[in-house]
């Protein structure tokens, strides 16, 4: 007998039979005008595109800032318009935009909104109105952030970590002007907006799965986004209170984070506060934030690899377990960012241990990705190429994390360019590769057309090789001892200037990679009307979003009836089946003739 779904008893959620519906089908709000359909839309798919469009637009600003920073680092002194103050404003805005306003918003607001309802067989998010509000508050947060570029004093230059006391003092750009205030207000707005969306994603996953879609049949994309959202709901409050308290210190002269201090010979009216308290609050948010970005990427890349290697994801249960374990552990490792912060040194033992333990579930995920390739039928499509590039950069960046997580090894490397190289590899480049792969993968569902493949290939190779050429050598600049956030090395008795040639090389690579992104943007628009039309399931994938009656899916996603799920998401090349994939909503496997 051909197994229905998978090997009986080995995999959970493959039992036969589908439970009866527990709730009536949802009655959706039906838009009556163009405005309610496309602008103030309550359709998660439209909201997803609004989120993604806004995130990519502001992300492009961060990209341009990175070129300016690289120009300064590669060719110091050549570009007169970049002085120390603007350099620090650039790194701050670049870092904050990339992490929060691009990656977090795109993975959760963009991919979360588009994919969760479709992949679990729901008509929409469970609270569509709140979902709409979430986007508009996010947009407001972005606008407030952008406004800081135009206020007197410019945006804040406090570094994306915003450490007090300097963040709110006059020695830092924007510290005593509008910059820091607008940054904190924007973060507060972002968190409010995110919370509205995040509660939606969680409740939708828990309550609105279609019949037969047990938790252990969900695609890993949904697991990743779901777990990341839970993390974000627990972690963002720490940043929220930190931001509010810092705002109070700045405008109301409270002293939450401000000890007695003398600034440029002036005794300030602060006393008794603790700068390290802010760092704990920041990193209690900031470390889970890494996984808020990474877990959706893990989930999505698992599905890309499985689909394009035509093979079931290897060790599905272990993969789910690893996502959940990483999510839980990510809350007890935060102080590995603080080994040299002056906190009690004994904490080092605890946090080094927890940090290195988290490497184990992470490594399991990597093994399972490559074991999925093993004995697969690998189609080197563009999503697959990006998935491979993700594994290379993620493994590279993950391994250098073992340097920085191991307290004593962190001592010489902390706050050097080694750290910059590490986190760009692991949470900059690697997740961005997944985003690219995901856009190439789902673009045909969103638009009905394929992105142009030739442009895609050029984009891929320049981006992959270029990004590696930027960030791999950068580790060695840090190993030599060049500190991060250095506007210039200037005159020095050290031998650090021997890194100059390398820095110039890195800058050239960065500008090349940047240029390739313009090609990608062009492709996004060009293919809207010129791309190859490919129908509803061009990749022959199993998951529900590819089984919709129309492509692009209409409001409400499914026709009259919700789909019913009979199997897990990874029935590729099931022995004896006539096709190399079996959609999740197909009741029985048709045998080869």
């Amino acid at each position, binding site marked *: 007998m051909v197994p229905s779904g998978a090997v009986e008893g080995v995999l959970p959620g493959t039992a036969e039979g589908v439970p009866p519906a527990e709730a009536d089908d949802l009655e959706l709000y039906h838009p009556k005008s163009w405005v309610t359909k496309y602008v103030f839309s309550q359709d998660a798919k439209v909201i997803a595109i609004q989120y993604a469009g806004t995130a990519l637009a502001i992300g492009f600003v961060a990209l341009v800032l990175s070129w300016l920073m690289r120009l300064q680092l590669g060719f110091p002194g050549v570009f007169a318009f970049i002085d*120390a103050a603007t350099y*620090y404003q650039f790194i701050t805005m670049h870092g904050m935009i990339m992490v929060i306003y691009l990656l977090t918003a795109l993975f959760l607001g963009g991919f979360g909104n588009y994919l969760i309802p479709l992949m679990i067989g729901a008509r929409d998010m469970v609270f569509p109105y709140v979902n709409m509000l979430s986007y508009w508050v996010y947009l407001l947060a972005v606008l407030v952030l952008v406004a800081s570029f135009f206020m007197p004093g410019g945006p804040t230059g406090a570094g994306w970590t915003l*450490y007090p*006391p300097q963040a709110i*003092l006059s*020695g830092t750009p924007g510290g005593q002007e509008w910059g820091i205030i607008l940054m904190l207000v924007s973060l507060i707005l972002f968190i409010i907006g995110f919370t509205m969306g995040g509660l939606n994603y969680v409740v939708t996953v828990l309550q609105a799965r279609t019949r037969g879609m047990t938790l252990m049949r969900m695609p890993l994309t949904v697991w990743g986004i779901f777990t990341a959202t839970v993390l974000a709901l627990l972690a963002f409050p720490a940043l929220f209170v930190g931001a509010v308290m810092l705002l109070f210190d700045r405008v109301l002269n409270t002293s939450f984070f401000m*000890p007695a*201090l003398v*600034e*440029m010979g002036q005794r300030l009216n602060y006393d008794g506060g603790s700068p*390290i308290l802010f760092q704990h609050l920041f990193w209690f948010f900031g470390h889970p934030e890494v996984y808020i970005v990474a877990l959706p990427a893990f989930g999505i890349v698992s599905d890309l690899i499985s689909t394009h*290697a*035509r*093979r*079931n994801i*290897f060790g599905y249960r272990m993969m789910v377990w690893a996502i959940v374990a990483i999510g839980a552990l990510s809350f007890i490792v935060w102080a590995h960012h603080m080994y*040299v912060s*002056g906190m009690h*040194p004994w904490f080092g*033992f605890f946090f*080094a241990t927890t940090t290195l333990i988290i490497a*184990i579930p992470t490594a*399991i995920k990597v*093994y399972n990705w490559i*074991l999925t*390739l093993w*004995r*697969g*039928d*690998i189609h*080197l499509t563009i999503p697959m*190429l990006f998935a*491979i590039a993700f594994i*290379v950069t993620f493994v*590279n960046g993950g*391994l250098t994390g*073992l340097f920085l997580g191991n*307290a*004593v*090894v962190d*001592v010489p490397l*902390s*706050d050097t360019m080694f750290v910059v190289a590490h986190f760009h590899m692991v949470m900059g480049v690697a997740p961005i590769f997944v985003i690219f792969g995901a856009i190439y993968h789902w673009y045909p569902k969103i638009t009905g057309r394929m992105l142009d493949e030739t442009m895609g290939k050029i984009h891929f190779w320049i981006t992959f090789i270029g990004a590696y050429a930027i960030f*791999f*050598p950068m580790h*060695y600049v840090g*190993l030599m001892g060049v*500190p991060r956030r*250095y*506007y*210039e*090395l200037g005159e*020095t008795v*050290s*031998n*650090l200037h021997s*890194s100059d040639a390398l820095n110039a090389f890195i800058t050239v690579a960065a500008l090349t990679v940047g240029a390739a992104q313009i090609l990608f943007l062009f492709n996004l628009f060009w293919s809207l009307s010129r791309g190859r039309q490919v129908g509803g399931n061009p990749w022959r994938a199993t998951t529900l979003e590819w089984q919709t009656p129309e492509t692009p899916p209409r409001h409400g996603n499914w026709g009259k009836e919700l789909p019913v799920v009979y199997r897990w998401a*990874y029935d590729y*090349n099931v*022995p004896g089946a006539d096709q190399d994939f079996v959609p999740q909503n197909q009741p029985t496997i048709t045998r080869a003739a």
Partner: protein
Amino acid sequence: MAVALILVLIVAGSVLFHLLSPWWWTPIASNWGYIDDTITITFWITGIVFAAVVLFMAYCIYRFRHQPGRRAVYEPESRKLEWWLTIVTGLGVAAMLAPGLFVWHQFIAVPKDATEFEVVGQQWLWNFRLPGKDGRLGAVDTRHVSADNPLGLDPDDPNAHDDLVIEGGDLHLEIGKPVKLLLRSIDVLHDFYVPEFRAKMDMVPGMVTYVWFTPIRTGTFEIFCAELCGVGHADMRGRVVVDTEQNYQAWLREQKTFRHMSARAGARIDASEDAGKESKTE
């Protein structure tokens, strides 16, 4: 296959760059050779894992690339393989963590015979303070900071009077003598970092942090501030000069005491009533 080949080249290129490129850490000048050793162990373990993963992937891409008629093998999981991999990973992690924790313990445990010096950061320069003849550093408080008392020494504390205060100059250390640097800031976060010493620690206003090491070679080394402290962050440099005993003593004789500085500024710290009040109400 182009993709597989490029992955192999990435591994080969990375390894060659690591081994052959001139960009490497600066020659060490402190006792923290252990830290370098731990980094070396970590490079080996992680380098092997990186090469293994990427090369295995290259092999898969070459061997299992799509060809007409190929079918993937359907195998949801393999308990045994997954456990093996978990255990091997655990061992690798332990091999890095154990020496790491061992050396961390040394890094934070200061030897009894270490001399205490103080480093004080402010936007954007370095100051230093050495205990005077009594061998003890006097009390300090940011509230005492003023133009003639830049480090905020307590004028009421007799131990403070003979402290040697070095404003913006170089710090000299004696070769082979362990030092414990007490780190303090009077305004924002800074970080004491000398690449050759491998040591680094934040300086936090409102508290005193520390770092210890033993200089093992003479020379002049640059202090970089390694915690963003405002627009002057990259300009905040200082110097540590490691001397032989003779040169060190010669340098020491030239340094000025707190009493001396205050007297020059016209304040009488011995009748410290007024001075204390003055700086408090300032």
